[in-house]
């Protein structure tokens, strides 16, 4: 471990802030995302504290509106969307394809600066007085009535969008052009297939959000009537354009998580992923169909019945490729020699939580039920199961899986497993009661509610406390591991992926010699286990 690696080549601040090394840029993103995650989480905690009692005794209604808006904006645009692609993806994409860096390293660093600029502008909007429109910026409230920092917050999101676009562009070009000799598309790790599908969505959907926010800001600034029905504008058009981005954005959040789960499930059951090609194409199918379902956010908005029927049907269609993935993970687990290391616990948690979120998504795709459940806690529970139960759990799983590669250190298995179990337990206690609340009719975005809802709300708030503690735990044991953990061998999990063929942490240029791929992906078999591992 005496030779230099990407962490030890240089220690100056300049070497970090002007780095073009994809691994260091990943660390920059990682640090910023922890920051945003805990800001968004603090808002969530405040929301749950307020909802522990039926009265408004913690914050005013106006503050409450600003809290859930802040929670939504920060979590969606400054944590969930960049989380796996920009940290884990940035770190492992070149390693997994045997490249020395991304195709455009300077563009990669620029994406981080753009992301931070957008983040700072949004934070300014939040701390200067906040914004109360909800993360969706629905017009005409956002353009006519809202007395808050709408344009500033929208500008922050607009700018962060460029960062997304540039990252997606970089990944697409990298995966197309920089694969090692022998690494054909069907030998590509499934994590990269899912990141590729994610990048396609980032590149095609984000510009539409940009133009939508620009039109909204124009309307608010000049007082013209693009979305104002009094002078001929159409607020529904805003929703169409907004959800044309924001529904695919859900897949931006969940697809990378699914990709991570492929790596974990395969590694910890020592088996190749069942139905590799189906899982690979399912990612692209989800990305493609995901573009055709935005109207299911508008079933009660007044769009035509035909439109609602078509969008309902297409929404059911997304379940097909999603189910392919879930069934193939369970088939991979079947008769595998399972090892319940921390990443595997997260992966198993993900499968359960994502399946629950996905199945309740089918409820909501059903027109008749959706009319009943619109804007209730049922919807809140559903998308938290996907985004938090799914995406954040997968993020933690991937983080634990690649942690030895990123830092060259091992973490405490005991604490990691405890945190994984606590997250699963805390998450379910927080969000399962919300399905019941929603089915009973408690609307979202209200900070007072009839007393009969209190039991479920107290359970949910109690779960949130457990969840908050569980999310804080990795901060300590991973933070400890980063500086004092035991040294990790190059390949602690005995995994066959290219990223494990170089030292941990990798040298600055990833590989000393250009790797050549001769094996099919996920070759967990006796021959592989018998090979000597370079420690």
């Amino acid at each position, binding site marked *: 471990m005496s030779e230099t690696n990407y962490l030890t080549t240089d220690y100056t601040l300049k070497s970090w802030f002007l780095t073009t090394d994809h691994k260091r840029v990943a660390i920059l993103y990682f640090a910023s995302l922890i920051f945003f995650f805990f800001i968004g989480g603090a808002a969530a905690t405040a929301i749950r504290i307020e909802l522990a009692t039926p009265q408004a005794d913690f914050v005013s209604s106006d503050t409450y509106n600003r809290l859930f808006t802040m929670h939504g904006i920060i979590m969606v645009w400054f944590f969930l969307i960049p989380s796996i692609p920009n940290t884990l993806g940035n770190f492992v994409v*070149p390693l997994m394809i045997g490249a020395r860096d991304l195709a455009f390293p300077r563009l990669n660093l620029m994406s981080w600066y753009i992301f931070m600029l957008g983040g700072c502008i949004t934070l300014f909007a939040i701390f200067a007085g906040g914004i109360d429109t909800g993360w969706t910026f629905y017009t005409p409230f956002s353009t006519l009535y809202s007395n808050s920092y709408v344009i500033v917050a929208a500008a922050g999101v607009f700018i962060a969008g460029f960062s997304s676009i540039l990252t997606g*562009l970089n990944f697409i*070009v990298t995966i197309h052009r920089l694969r090692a000799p022998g690494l054909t598309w069907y030998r590509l790790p499934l994590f990269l297939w899912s990141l590729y599908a994610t990048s396609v969505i980032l*590149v095609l959907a984000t510009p539409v959000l940009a133009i939508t926010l620009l039109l909204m800001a124009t309307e608010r600034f*000049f007082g*013209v*009537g693009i979305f104002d029905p009094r002078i*001929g504008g159409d607020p529904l058009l805003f929703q169409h*354009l907004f959800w044309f981005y924001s529904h695919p954005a859900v897949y931006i959040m969940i697809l990378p998580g699914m990709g991570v789960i492929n790596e974990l499930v395969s590694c910890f059951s020592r088996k190749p992923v069942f139905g590799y090609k189906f899982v690979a194409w399912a990612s692209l199918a989800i990305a493609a169909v995901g573009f055709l379902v935005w109207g299911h956010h508008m079933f009660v908005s007044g769009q035509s019945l035909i439109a609602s029927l078509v969008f309902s049907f297409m929404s059911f269609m997304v379940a097909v490729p999603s189910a392919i993935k879930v069934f193939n993970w369970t088939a991979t687990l079947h008769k595998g020699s399972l090892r319940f290391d921390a990443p595997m616990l997260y992966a198993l948690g993900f499968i359960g939580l994502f399946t629950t979120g996905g199945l309740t998504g089918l409820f909501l795709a059903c027109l008749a039920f959706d009319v009943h459940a619109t804007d209730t806690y049922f919807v809140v529970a559903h998308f938290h199961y996907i985004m938090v139960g799914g995406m954040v759990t997968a993020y933690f799983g991937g983080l634990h899986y690649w942690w030895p590669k990123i830092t060259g250190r091992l973490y405490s298995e005991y604490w990691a497993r405890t945190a994984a179990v606590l997250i699963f337990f805390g998450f379910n206690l927080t969000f399962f009661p919300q399905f019941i609340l929603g089915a009973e009719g408690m609307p979202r975005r209200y900070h007072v509610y009839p007393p009969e809802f209190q039991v479920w709300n107290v359970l949910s708030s109690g779960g949130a406390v457990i969840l908050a503690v569980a999310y804080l735990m990795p901060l300590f044991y991973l933070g400890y591991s980063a500086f004092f953990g035991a040294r990790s061998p190059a390949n602690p999990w005995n995994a066959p992926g290219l990223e494990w063929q170089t030292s941990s942490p990798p040298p600055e240029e990833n590989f000393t010699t250009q790797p050549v791929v001769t094996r099919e992906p996920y070759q967990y078999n006796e021959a592989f286990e018998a090979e000597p591992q370079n420690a």
Partner: protein
Amino acid sequence: MPEPPAFASQYVSIPHRDHTAELGMWVFIATEALLFGGLILAYFVYRHLFPHAFAEGSRHTDILIGTINTAVLLTSSFLVAWAVEIFSPATTRIVAWLLVGASCLGLAFIALKGIEYSREYDEHLVPGIDFQFGGSLANGVQLFFIFYFVATAIHAVHMLIGIGLLLTLATISRSSPTTRHHTALHSAALYWHFVDVVWIFLFALIYLPGRASS
């Protein structure tokens, strides 16, 4: 062509590097297409809702300047394409002049656009500032002019970025014309052509409705 001794380590060869850069530009253009696509979609929705008002608004645009600008942009695209075709160490001087010529045409476009804007301001056609338009079509005409100003302003911003790119390349490709600069020039040219293509669409959408009738 003289080459710098090394290229970044993630590429295996110079053509590999150049093709990678070019693919990046195409993906970027895809995002730009979606940006203008959203705008044009919104335009079509309102044109469908207010067909007469959009025709009426269109008749208040300055078709002479619009047409001249279309010709100006197409000519500049021709100059840029020419520069890409003949790029070599022997032709740096001509390439630089072609790019400067294209940039001047771009600036002429912006200048004409400015004249057009000021006329519309005088005629009180700028929504949100002092829009005055009588009659039953007023709301629809205002919507038309919102799209006119937003679309042409975004297009003009793209033009300014393009002019900066062309002038930069005119400078650096003269100093050391490597294949790297040829790739950069090619990518900038793709961008410039894309911005011109967008204008063709905007021209048809903004200036032409309602002109054939009445």
